[in-house]
């Protein structure tokens, strides 16, 4: 099938097309979560909403931070801050593969000229206590997306199962636009009165954050923040019920925010090189413990499937 779409001209056009495509397929188009996360999966719209029995369909862009991947803006495709496009549908529809292929068509990938392949790649997030089976999707030998059927999140079996799609937007866009270095990629339309490249927007921030992540972040402070986030998460989850007005309100989301914080703080500490191999496992285990407890609480709430 020849692509029904023209080739997009900019990074933002690819994002906009994905938004329209998934909106047309019935997803709620959400906005990015307002916290630092390592991947789109951490957004509560994925982590928490994949739990419980209530149907769900959401798509969103999520800015993601991986401090160790910073290269001062010099590497053609490595960034400490980048974007993921995330789709989560529960229960996973039987035609999810076809829906996904439709999204490639929407962004101008002509499947009659390209070789699209589903190559085994099982997904596991030790920090979220989550795993699923699926593939990495290859387009002419390049990984353009992750495709996962969630089996477990926060230690809970997923029932029904969510289908999750994750597009690494920069890499995908570079491929579609034929750009060799991420910083050269047009962000808006190159014919705009003020054309902006990805580099115009992010080169300086990549440099600044790379320096801070690798050399400057105050590790003592970060360690303290980690401990604080962990303690606050626990406090939120064990707050006495009901509250002083007699209402019983579980606080899965505020607690989960602290889990997200702890996870990101761990990533920052890791980038600063202060976490040894043996400690690593222990930190990951501590974040996972928080994620599990948040999941335990979420499934006792209305959004988690408990009848109102």
């Amino acid at each position, binding site marked *: *099938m020849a692509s029904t779409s023209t080739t997009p001209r900019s990074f933002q056009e690819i994002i906009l097309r994905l938004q329209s495509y998934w909106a047309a397929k019935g997803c709620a188009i959400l906005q990015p979560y307002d916290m630092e996360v390592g991947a789109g999966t951490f957004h509560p719209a994925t982590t928490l909403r994949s739990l419980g029995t209530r149907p769900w369909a959401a798509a969103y862009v999520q800015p993601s931070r991986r401090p160790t991947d910073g290269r001062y803006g010099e590497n*053609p*495709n490595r960034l400490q801050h980048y974007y993921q496009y995330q789709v989560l549908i529960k*229960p*996973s*529809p*039987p035609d999810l*593969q076809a829906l996904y292929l439709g999204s490639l068509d929407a962004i101008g990938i002509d*499947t*009659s*000229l*390209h*070789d*699209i*392949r*589903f*190559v*085994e790649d*099982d997904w596991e997030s030790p920090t979220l206590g989550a795993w*699923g*089976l*699926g*593939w990495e999707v290859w*387009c*002419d*030998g*390049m990984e353009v997306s992750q495709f996962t*059927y969630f*089996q477990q999140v926060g230690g809970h079996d*997923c*029932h*029904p*199962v969510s*289908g999750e799609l994750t597009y690494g937007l920069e890499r995908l866009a570079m*491929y579609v636009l034929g750009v060799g270095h991420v910083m050269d990629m047009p962000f808006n339309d190159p014919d705009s009165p003020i054309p902006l490249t990805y580099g115009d927007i992010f080169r300086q921030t990549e440099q600044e954050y790379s320096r801070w992540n690798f050399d400057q972040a105050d590790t003592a402070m970060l360690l303290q923040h980690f401990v604080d986030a962990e303690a606050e998460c626990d406090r939120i989850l064990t707050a006495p019920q009901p509250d002083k007005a007699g209402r019983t309100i579980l606080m899965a989301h505020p607690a989960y925010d602290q889990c997200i914080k702890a996870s990101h703080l761990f990533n920052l500490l890791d980038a600063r090189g202060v976490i040894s*191999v*043996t400690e690593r496992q222990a930190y990951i285990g501590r974040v996972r413990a928080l994620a599990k407890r948040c999941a335990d609480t979420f499934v006792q709430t209305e959004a988690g499937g408990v009848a109102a």
Partner: protein
Amino acid sequence: MPDLLIELFSEEIPARMQFRAREDMKKLVTDGLVTAGLTYASAGAFSTPRRLTLTIEGLTAESPTQREERKGPKADAPDAAIEGFLRATGLTRDQLEVREDKKGATLFATLTRPGRKAPEIIAEVLEATIRTFPWPKSMRWGAGSLRWVRPLHSILCILTDDHGTEIVPLTLDGIATTNTTEGHRFMAPGRFAVTSFDDYAAKLKRAFVVLDSAEREAQIWHDATTQAFAQGLEVVPDAGLLTEVAGLVEHPVVLMGAIGEAFLALPPEVLQTSMREHQKFFSVKNPKTGRIEKFVTVANRETADHGATILAGNQKVLTARLSDAKFFWENDLRTVKSDGLEGMAAGLAQVTFHNKLGKLGSQADRIARIEALAREIAPLVGAAPDLAAEAARIAKADLQSAMVGEFPELQGTMGGYYARAAGLPDAVANACKAHYQPLGPSDDVPTEPVSVAVALADKIDTLTSFWVIDEKPTGSKDPFALRRAALGVVRLVLGNGVRVGLYGAIYSSMVSQLITKRVAGKHELSLKLIRGVADLGFKEAAETLNSTMQAESRKVSSEIVESAIREALPKCEDLLAFLHDRLKVHLRDQGIRHDVIDACLAMPNNDDLTLLVKRAEALSGFVKTDDGTNLLQGFKRANNILTAEEKKDGVEYSYGADPKFAETPEEKTLFTALDKAEATIAPAMKAEDFPAAMGAMAALRAPIDAFFNTVQVNSDNAVIRRNRLNLLSRIRATCTQVADLTKVEG
């Protein structure tokens, strides 16, 4: 007779699981059908990324009627008993038969189970197969509860005979069986119906699906080699990759592309590994230059531009990958040129070899121990000790290289390149890769002396380290591959005819680790010294050890030496026994009998495996000859009587017999024969010419027989009796120099 066709159509099945899945599907379904009473003529299983297919020909249309007779209570039994029997059989009283039995009139029931139609059985078996399929990993999807490797979309299940085709009805989790399937996802979308396996295979072919993975493999290999040949090139064979790639495509299209000029100088192993691991490309070699210059990728479809877009995309990804590899290669070379391999290895101090090893577990400490051991072993294998020590020091340096960080399977290989770049001698560079060998029972054994020394030291250290912490293989569990390490030691020793007393090496390695464990701080203990102090008192040993250490680390006390040695001794025995077990398996595989091995194991210096095997091979060959029979018979005759008398008397006769008490000519002849035999045996034993020694022993049979036929050992004269028993003892001593013949059967 009907034919059965089943196709389980799903989302993409991981390539690595397809082979097993085909076999499992065939076995589960055919076993199930046979158990239910059906028979079949032949069965074949196939797989593509999206389907598992089973065809069964010549299936019986129904299972046979089965009759079963059951014996019930006596005819005059109480009503309750008879009613119970009726309930159990589902019959009425008048359907029972009364027959005369030993106990009198007895009730019998004949149960008839009618045969069942094939579709009913197939549906049952198929459902059970799907629900219990042994996927290595399976999943649920959507809101259902069915498990499969990936979402299962349709089940084709038809029975075909002369009258036509029928769908075998079954509904599983909302999926109803059909007679339809799909072709290629992109090249022939849409479903179609089939009537038989032949029709199915033909229609799939038209729909751009090659059903048989063997056919896909053959096609890929044919197209790849043809394209390469046309340009004077060769595809590097890679059977594993071929199978994997055939499991990733339904319609293979082979495309060949060039590797950028900038990357051709990378070591071929790097190109090959990067292309295979990341991109699943085959390497294409230029036989004239020996370089890898092109790649072959296998796409899953044809395109209007004959794959130009696909090839360009793949080339681009490869360029990015190889840029990384080149960056690692150049970075590593820079490190090596400025700091040497030892500089590269510096970081190993922070790397843990294994957590459980605790403070003995850092790679750097381990390397120091291997170096010491390699230095000690070197002279025994004809290597220069300094070279062996140097090789041991740098053999694992590449674990810290960027390249091995990215491609762990290149460990050793990269070390070799980097060692040459650092100007180290070939013997040292070669040891980087060879010291890991042999990796399995079929892997080559290194033969270069330096490599042999380091390989032995590496494996012995691995074994002693884990024995020190009591982490030994149990049953099928061997997480640290210690059996492989032990077999490696055995094969290294035997393959190179190394003469080394392993006990000494094991002992010094263990005691050194056990002392290190007990003494805080950094220190190096000479293995030679540890071996040297073994016979000293603990106090003197401690003093001697301390005298080699720097003042601030002189902390070895006599108590420490004592407790380390006490802990080491049983562990050394145990590890030696473990090595002997591996040796036994190795020798049994070569057809040497277990009793022959045991007879040789019972001899002194059994930690010298080369000597041990020399004995075993000689004895194994010898017992099959007439001389061998003579030796055993002669020896056993003498030994049986001697043993019995020794037991009776409660003494051991080993005082030496005196020929002057010999009474009969046969007795005198035996003395002379023994003298003569020993004159031959002694030099033969010295030369380790065991067949010659045993030949001389065998010659004793005739005089021994003559002696027993004419001489009464238990003479009334106590002096003469004692002398004769001592003579037998001399026979025993003479004949057990090669092996303990009491352990040989026959």
